[in-house]
């Protein structure tokens, strides 16, 4: 019997003879394996990042928004919240640590000849606590500013960079629509959010200023609540729900026309979405592996035809069908495994690079690397079998006559 190792050596020699063709053959596998591993690695990194952000966000954040629970038609007949609702929550729900009203919209901010479209948020000082932000320089809003709706603002890091460059923003005046307001504080940088939004692209102004000068109404879009450390989130959630039902005069048979969401749930949902997306993208990438396999079959078939005479010689001088089959099968497997290896190297390189660009952590996933490699070898076996069988079944006389 022909030893397996010598068959592998034979296959390697055969592939070395046709370097160009070998490379073209494995290209499909390289891309397939590379894509799958890259997708899974980046997806894994994104999931880890989401988890990290959940951890940094704290698990005790509640978001109260008008409208029914996520679903079709949720915006119909929404009764917006008012400042009084915010105060009621702070007053009535004992387990609440801070309550911040949040209304915001995208507005062009102008300073000198610089302008930058940013998110302008009307809120109070509690907002910084609830959203885990701190003021790097300058100060918070004063009570009188909050009450009077003064033209003052606190800007995020991105806004500072875009509008002021190297200049100190404190004391300068920026224009938001018709409102010209003085910069009294600068927020600490926070980076990207889970959804990939820049959390530093923000201008915070007192809620009363926002209502009077920007939205022109007394509405509060959402209320963000942080629950006291150690207090159960679900109890706070239920208390707020009861309070709001009472304040909105809902009869027991009515559904809630507002929604108290636990950020933990949202985060969970996001993690799930990330994982689902990763799985989907990986599945698409896996299809390219299949296509790669068909490519191998194609080239192997061509190779069998090209080498008909060689096969004839081998069969005539004493190679068994099984040995010829083995030779071509091993060739296919060596090819596809090579493709797999190159794919792995490329994928890891690409993943490290992409992780940097997309600002997600690079998480090495040994499992998918092993699976992708085994799969690429399996592709060789599956798609190499038919051409190999074709070679083994050749009639030596016919094969020797082949030109």
């Amino acid at each position, binding site marked *: 019997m022909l030893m397996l190792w010598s068959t592998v050596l034979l296959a390697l020699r055969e592939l070395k003879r046709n370097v160009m063709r070998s490379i073209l053959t494995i290209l499909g596998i390289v891309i397939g394996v590379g894509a799958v591993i890259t997708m899974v690695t980046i997806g894994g990194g994104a999931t880890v990042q989401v988890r990290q952000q959940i951890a940094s966000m704290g698990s005790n954040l509640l978001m109260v928004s008008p409208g029914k629970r996520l679903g079709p038609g949720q915006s119909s007949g929404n009764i917006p919240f008012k400042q009084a609702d915010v105060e009621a929550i702070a007053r009535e729900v004992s387990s609440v640590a801070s309550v911040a009203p949040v209304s915001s919209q995208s507005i062009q901010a102008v300073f000198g000849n610089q302008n930058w479209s940013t998110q302008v948020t009307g809120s109070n000082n509690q907002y910084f606590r609830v959203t885990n932000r701190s003021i790097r320089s300058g100060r918070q809003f004063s009570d009188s500013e909050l009450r009077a709706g003064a033209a003052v603002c606190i800007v995020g890091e991105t806004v500072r960079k875009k509008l002021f460059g190297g200049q100190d923003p404190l004391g300068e005046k920026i224009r938001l629509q018709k409102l010209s307001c003085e910069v009294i504080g600068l927020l600490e940088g926070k980076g990207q959010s889970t959804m990939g939004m820049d959390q530093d692209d923000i201008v915070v102004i007192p809620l009363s200023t926002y209502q009077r000068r920007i939205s022109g109404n007394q509405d509060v879009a959402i209320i963000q609540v942080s629950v006291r450390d150690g207090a159960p989130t679900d109890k706070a959630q239920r208390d707020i729900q009861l309070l709001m039902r009472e304040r909105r005069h809902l009869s027991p048979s009515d559904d809630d026309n507002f929604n108290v969401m636990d950020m933990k749930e949202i985060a969970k949902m996001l993690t799930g979405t990330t994982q689902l997306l990763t799985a989907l993208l990986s599945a698409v990438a896996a299809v390219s592996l299949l296509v790669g396999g068909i490519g191998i079959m194609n080239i192997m078939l061509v190779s069998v035809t090209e080498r008909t*005479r060689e096969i004839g010689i081998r069969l*005539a001088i*004493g*190679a*068994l*069908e099984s040995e010829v089959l083995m030779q071509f099968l091993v060739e296919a497997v060596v090819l596809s495994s090579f493709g797999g290896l190159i794919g792995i190297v490329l994928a890891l390189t690409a993943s490290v690079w992409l992780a940097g660009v997309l600002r997600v952590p690079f998480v090495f996933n040994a499992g998918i690397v092993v699976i992708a490699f085994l799969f690429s070898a399996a592709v060789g076996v599956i798609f190499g079998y038919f051409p190999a069988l074709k070679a083994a079944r050749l009639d*030596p006389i016919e094969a*020797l006559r082949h030109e």
Partner: protein
Amino acid sequence: MNMIVLRQMDGQSLIELQGVTKVYGTGQAAMHALRGIDLGIEEGDFLAVMGPSGSGKSTCMHILGCLDTPTAGTYKFKGIEVGKLTRNQRTRLRRFYLGFVFQGYNLLNRTSALENVELPLIYRGVPAGVRRARALQALETVGLNGWESHTPGELSEGQQQRVAIARAIVTEPAVLFADEPTGNLDTARSREIMDLLNGLNRDQGITIVMVTHEPDMAAYAKRIVRFLDGLVESDGQNGRAT
């Protein structure tokens, strides 16, 4: 001249063909390549098979070489009925008993002379060290020492034919089949090859069956068999049959 010499079979022959026919295709399109061949070959013989193209000599060679099986009749190799063997069993027969020098050399391209000669030993499972030594020895026998690492493309036609012969004899086969071994060579080279075959037959006792259409080359053989229209036209010791 047209005397048909039938050799009596005694069961001891190395090769024994009895009433062998070969038909390709069926019905109207059927082509009768062999119409009933009786032929015996003894160990140590040197047979030249002659005949015009289409006379069935190649088909007969294929059957003798266990590459093909007869449609009817029996072919016994060392008493074994080849027609009843499976494809793999016939392959094993070729592997262990037969050597082939194909028409047009049929060497593996881009493969060194040494590796070409080693090939049949690989399938016999001979360990690498022994394999190499035997292949080198076979190359020396055909006078190609020093050319081991050259590929067929770097060798002359005569040298390629020598490599093919070395590949055929490296296994020390019971029978060496040579299909037009001097077909593409000039007279001087042809004589060298024939001297080589003659030497192998004389010194190593290898039975040789050679297809040729050149009387000059056939003259080297001990016995000449002529084919015509799928039948043995004449069979006799060299010099007497013609």
